[in-house]
């Protein structure tokens, strides 16, 4: 066994840290995080130039990585910086377009085309069936779509959408020009943007007719990415909390001198290491036989520990962490709301439960 990151991944890590330190100043984060289109063109450009998207794609898809550990390397750094750029939907798109063998993959890998992936609907979350959005085929891969997609991450900044819809009783995947749909965009409580997407006889191009396998594989990669983002955030919250316990004085001593807080901090640190471990395990297994189940194990544990770490970081800081001005509040919000993306802890627990007899 070897728990060291490869030289290449260490380099990507360092380069990303430098780039994000320059572009994603937490103090100035509001400007991007809560104002349409909830993405900064210069940051996106810089990410694409340093190869952040290429690291998420395999060589066949025109990238330089695409392994589970490449995904976790990139997203852990994005998490540490609390970067709100919609890299997650880009990852999903890269995965889907390469499954489809589509020549669109290249533009996604360079970041020239910006993707949002529309699956969830108001009544159907975290699941591919039964989707209400419907496609009517016109032959030659051309189709029109009707339906409504909900909380589509990254849609306000997207040039293109990938949309899951029913075609002949199956879940199919389509490409849609973002300018051809009606978008109702909004900021998210943890920063970044999403939109309600209305499809009304919207022209679309069929990419995969029976897309369940490809969608599940992409969603696994996305869930893994979210776990890594969470680990990055947890590290920051742990360090910030530790620092605060040592400097904040009440009753004439640093509050870290109170055993009531010491033991809780230690418990928190244990949970964070557990989160890191399950995420690494899932990164290793992604795309292997038991990959899906391991990703679900990771996403469930991250859902649980993420909330714990967020709540404890706030509580141990006291009032200051309740303020918008202090970055802990934003880290805590992001860490909590991660559980509302690509399957929450219960959804993933069901998947793990389903495999108990295997």
């Amino acid at each position: 066994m070897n728990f060291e990151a490869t030289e290449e991944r260490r380099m990507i890590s360092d380069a990303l840290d430098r780039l994000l330190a320059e572009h994603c100043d937490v103090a100035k984060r509001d400007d991007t995080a809560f104002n349409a289109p909830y993405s900064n063109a210069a940051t996106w450009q810089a990410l694409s130039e340093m190869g952040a998207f290429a690291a998420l794609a395999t060589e066949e898809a025109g990238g330089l990585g695409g392994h589970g550990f490449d995904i976790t390397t990139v997203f852990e750094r994005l998490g540490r910086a609390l970067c709100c750029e919609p890299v997650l939907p880009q990852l999903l798109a890269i995965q889907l377009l390469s499954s489809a063998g589509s020549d669109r993959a290249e533009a996604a890998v360079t970041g020239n085309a910006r993707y949002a992936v529309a699956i969830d609907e108001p009544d159907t979350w975290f699941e591919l069936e039964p989707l209400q959005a419907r496609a009517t085929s016109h032959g030659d891969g051309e189709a029109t779509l009707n339906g409504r997609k909900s909380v589509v991450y990254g849609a306000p900044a997207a040039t293109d959408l990938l949309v899951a819809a029913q075609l002949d009783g199956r879940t199919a995947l389509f490409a849609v020009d973002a300018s051809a749909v009606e978008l109702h965009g909004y900021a998210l409580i943890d920063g970044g943007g999403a939109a309600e997407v209305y499809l009304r006889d919207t022209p679309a191009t069929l990419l995969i007719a029976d897309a369940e396998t490809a969608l599940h594989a992409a969603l696994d990669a996305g869930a893994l990415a979210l776990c890594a983002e969470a680990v990055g955030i947890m590290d920051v919250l742990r360090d910030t909390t530790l620092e605060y316990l040592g400097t904040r004085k009440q009753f004439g001593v640093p509050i870290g001198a109170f055993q009531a807080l010491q033991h809780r901090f230690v418990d928190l640190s244990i949970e964070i290491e557990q989160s890191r471990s399950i995420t690494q395990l899932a990164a290793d297994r992604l795309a292997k036989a038991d990959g899906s189940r391991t990703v679900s194990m990771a996403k469930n544990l991250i859902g649980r520990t993420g909330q714990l770490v967020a709540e404890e970081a706030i509580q141990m800081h006291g009032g200051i962490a309740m303020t918008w001005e202090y970055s802990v509040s934003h880290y805590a919000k992001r860490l909590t709301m991660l559980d509302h993306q690509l399957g929450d802890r219960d959804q993933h627990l069901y998947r793990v439960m389903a495999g108990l007899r295997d």
Partner: protein
Amino acid sequence: MNFEFSPEERAFQAEVERFLADHLPRDIAEKVHRGESIGKADTERWQAILNDKGWLALTWPTAFGGTGWDPVQQYLYDEAAWRAGAPRTIPFGLNMLGPVLIAFGTPEQQGHYLPRILNGDDWWCQGYSEPGAGSDLASLRTRADRDGDHYVINGQKTWTTLGQHANKIFCLVRTSSEGKPQEGISFVLVDLDTPGIEMRPIKLIEGGHEVNEVFFTDVRVPVANLVGEENKGWTIAKFLLGHERTGIAGVGLSRQTLVKLKEVAASSRRNGRALIDDPLFAARIAEVEIDLAAMMITNLRMLSQAQGSPGPEASMLKIKGTVIHQTLNDLARRALGPAAAPFPAEALAGNHALVDDTQARNAARYFNNRKLSIFGGSNEIQRNILTKMTQGARR
């Protein structure tokens, strides 16, 4: 033992319900049910209606214009009010300063300030905490120096809830630096219009404005505004912090929040069925319902046993009550799935296909209510109080 309310108590409950049905303005109740924040105007409108009926100051004796109700009556009122969608009354004058003045104030102070609280002439806020003095309140540094028949106040208060609506603030200030830190503290009433006071907003985690910082520069306050004795403010501070007993467990509010949680769980779908039929999620709702049922009896038990000034039972009720309420908020946020994420919730208001108006703010409410275990003496501080009590009992 008898866990049924007596015929008199049931009759009282029916009277409360009738009054609420007849007098609570529909538009205000609808806002409360939708989970919108209630502004100053609506709060004052409702408090005026309650005052006309003599039902505004639940905990005050009748001699001062209060209800004179016993704890069970207060509880019954509280629960009925939340059920009906009554907004909360503002506690600073009614539940904090009022009892302090009744216990420690001069007849002049009582005669002047208590009616003004009831009539809505004054909106009080609480100036206890400072940037360096949170849990350790006794380390506060805002100074009040005697100058003839005035105090001159210099320093900073923070976390002043709803101070933006207030015209008065009651403050703990340092009048002596001799002896133990607790010994040189005084309790003074300050008019926020006095020159030298500046208030600045603090934005909270979910984006709202409910707290402020207050700066005092050479603020001159008449010595007549001192409550109790100079340097004996700590006794008042402790009295005040422990005082709000009936409300502290928040049973009425939590029961109402549970109703809302069940509504959202019944209307959200997962895996092709209502979330309330999903065994994992249903189990969580059921467990918090069990905790709340126990809490209701704990609350009533402690309230009926506590005599005179509030004791450590307030700490127990605070810890349990805040944890239950936070759990309810947590489940309500999670029940929305991805629809919990839009910010501000108004982005989707009216968009019923995704999320009902009454639930749209669930995530914001969850984050905002992290405060419950921090303010009013954090849950850790409450545990310290209880530890002292239990160890005292062992000795």
